[in-house]
């Protein structure tokens, strides 16, 4: 067969079926329906198998992307799963929620001329098949007697737990809420990431022997010091997430009808307030909903509001669409579903009625000025451009701050903003205590949190004197397995173990 080139491959990315926007805003079923077998094979054939593999470098957990795509071309789906499982236990989740356009797909050489290979969709396809077929990748685990505690059952904690369990440690995850998953469970709604998918992939982590203690608020039920000294854990990983939503401090924030996206989404996703009164947790939402912010959290809140019957949903963002941190697909879906975007608009005041209920918003128009220190152009208010409009619910999705509990109850060194300080190997200021994910970087992404969890696991193994699997194994030497992320700089630095250079 002649080698594939940009000209010979299919010029369009294989589309993924999706529910019709009019129909889907009445339900919480998944919006995108995933690839069929034929779709997956078509799309896999679009990969050029280029030797540079920029996609692998673009992946925070270093998935051997051409490797698993090749297996799909070979119709060896189980093999494709094994390649994925080497780097991630959560392919069905990451395939759905990673910002692929900024990572693997953004780096794909095909994007120089055409739409990139649908890497995320292929990953999801294999992940879903693994769930449907009940595949799991359970290596032979030899217990080594070390007890490891993981604080927080979000993606960072889950990734670290899986790697430590594979290395033979006795791993317990402590989670404050009554269900594991972190943002995957309480934040991201079912139509984007069904909780059944989260549960199914989490189940694979449990199959590695990982134990979960829900309803356990670490720092308050016992301290980090107690975990190490009294409860006998040899090492601890902290992945407690960012939590603690921000407000702006503008007038009217205490009115009834103003809430954070976290509260709104937690009521709906974790507590299923959409089913009130069959479920006990209520939600009080008006006909017109305004959401402040334009990241993934904002998109989720708006799309949930539409599904719960809001008639008009507005997105207010002080910059433009180009600066919005949301995944492209979410912006597109939100637009299709009828969200009304008000770019370059900032709220000044929330207006209320005699019953202290939100009745409207006073906003001001903005324009983009000089670049600020985030390298984005700073929005500047346009004089005398303020205006009012009617709404009954205001949802804040403008980011989060560090959750203070672990800091309040330990001697961990925190940075100025309250996040946990770690070195390049995810080590905190306390010996044997590692940290990663949003509690270190501030709000980031699922895959970065997982990457940090895995990186911490490697560091923890070194601390405990456990040999890396790579050093003991003699399997396929062509596969890179190690990676590292300098989370403080938000750059991906790939670290390869000696002798493991990839045969190009």
């Amino acid at each position: 067969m002649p080698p594939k080139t940009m000209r010979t491959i299919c010029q369009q990315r294989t589309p993924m079926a999706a529910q019709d926007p009019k129909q889907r805003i009445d339900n919480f079923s998944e919006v995108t329906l995933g690839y069929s077998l034929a779709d997956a094979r078509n799309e896999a054939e679009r990969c050029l198998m280029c030797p540079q593999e920029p996609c692998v470098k673009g992946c925070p957990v270093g998935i051997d992307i051409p490797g698993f795509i090749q297996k799909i071309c070979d119709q060896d789906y189980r093999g494709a799963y094994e390649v994925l499982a080497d780097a991630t236990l959560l392919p069905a989740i990451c395939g759905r929620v990673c910002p692929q356009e900024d990572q693997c797909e953004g780096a794909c050489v095909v994007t120089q001329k055409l739409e990139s290979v649908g890497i995320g969709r292929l990953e999801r396809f294999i992940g879903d098949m693994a769930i449907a077929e009940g595949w799991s990748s359970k290596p032979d685990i030899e217990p080594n007697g070390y007890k490891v505690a993981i604080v927080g059952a979000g993606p960072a904690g889950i990734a670290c737990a899986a790697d430590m369990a594979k290395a033979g440690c006795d791993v317990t995850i402590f989670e404050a809420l009554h269900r594991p998953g972190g943002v995957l469970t309480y934040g991201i709604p079912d139509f984007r990431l069904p909780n059944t998918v989260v549960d199914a992939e989490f189940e694979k982590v449990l199959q590695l022997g990982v134990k979960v203690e829900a309803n356990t608020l670490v720092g308050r039920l016992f301290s980090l010091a107690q975990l190490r000294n009294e409860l006998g854990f040899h090492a601890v990983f902290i992945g407690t997430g960012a939590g603690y939503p921000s407000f702006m401090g503008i007038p009217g924030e205490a009115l009834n009808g103003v809430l954070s996206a976290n509260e709104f989404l937690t009521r709906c996703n974790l507590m299923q307030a959409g089913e009130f009164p069959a479920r006990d947790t209520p939600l009080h939402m008006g006909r017109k909903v305004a959401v402040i912010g334009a990241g993934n959290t904002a998109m989720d809140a708006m799309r949930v509001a539409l599904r719960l019957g809001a008639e008009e949903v507005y997105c207010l963002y002080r910059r433009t669409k180009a600066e919005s941190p949301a995944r492209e697909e979410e912006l597109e879906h939100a637009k299709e579903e009828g969200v009304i975007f008000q770019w370059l608009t900032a709220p000044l005041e929330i207006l209320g009625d005699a019953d202290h209920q939100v009745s409207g918003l006073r906003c001001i128009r903005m324009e983009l000025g000089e670049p600020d220190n985030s390298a984005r152009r700073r929005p500047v208010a346009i004089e005398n451009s303020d205006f009012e409009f009617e709404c009954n619910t205001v949802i804040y999705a403008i980011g989060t701050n560090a959750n203070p509990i672990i800091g309040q109850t330990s001697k961990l060194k925190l940075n100025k903003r309250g996040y946990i300080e770690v070195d390049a190997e995810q080590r905190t200021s306390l010996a044997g205590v590692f940290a990663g994910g949003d509690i270190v970087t501030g709000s980031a992404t699922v895959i970065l949190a997982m990457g940090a969890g895995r990186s911490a696991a490697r560091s923890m193994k070194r601390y405990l004197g456990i040999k890396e699997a790579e050093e003991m194994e003699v399997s396929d030497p062509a596969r890179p397995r190690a990676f590292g992320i300098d989370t403080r700089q938000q750059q991906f630095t790939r670290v390869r173990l000696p002798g493991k250079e990839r045969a190009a």
Partner: protein
Amino acid sequence: MYEILAREEFSESTFLLEVQHPLLAKAANPGQFVIVMVRADGERIPLTIADYSVARGTITLVIQAVGKTTRDMQQNCRVGDMLYALVGPMGIPSHIGEVQKVICVGGGLGVAPVFPQARAFKQRGAYVIGVIGFRSKDLIFWEDKFRDVCDELIICTDDGSAGIQGLVTDGVAQAIESHPDIEEVIAIGPPVMMKFCAETTRPHKIKTMVSLNPIMVDGTGMCGGCRVSVGGEIKFCCVDGPDFDGHQVDFDELMRRLDRFKAEEKQSLERWSRATNCRLQDEEPHTPQ
């Protein structure tokens, strides 16, 4: 699962549950609270840890049946039953300062929660004046427990059937009058009661700590539903509190925010009452002769 080991009725609306959780009993401090879910499809509700015993491995909750969840608990939580979720201790423990003389005020559902503070101050060697308020004599509970830890106890009843007739603020005023050297007041109860306690002590410039009870969801600082205004700043009650300086708290805002779900709470309670009545009626013919 967390087993209920004991239950006690205080009145038609108030009852006590003692729940097994040895780690929690060990970790609990005065002023902290837990979040409870009675069942998997239930709500997460915050309740103050009214007492704890390391020896028995239990914590004690004193609950006032006001709405759907608490009435459901009153009707259905029996000794031997399990709670679906119990998490804590939440919140920053109360600061038990080295003061010589302190008043601990509890009104309504605040009587039980103020007890651990009163005991802690006593253990620190302070002169403790307890002021507890009830509607009438037959609603009084824990009088003996308070007498054990208080140097003076002022009971206030609305109808004068026991102690002095009046509100707890009258009790506080009386205590301040006879003790000019009071250094601190701790007040726990309905927001309106805490507000007026703070107003009573303000002219005397006596430090007054209150324990706030906004609507909560997670109790871990993640949702911001429990936010309150203290000294013009936003605080999350579950992680920054629940104790705050009563002279700085915006109580009116707190009271307005407690009404956020009034319509839904009413609907939920009515639905539950209907279902409970139907069940009771259905069950009647089956009662053994």
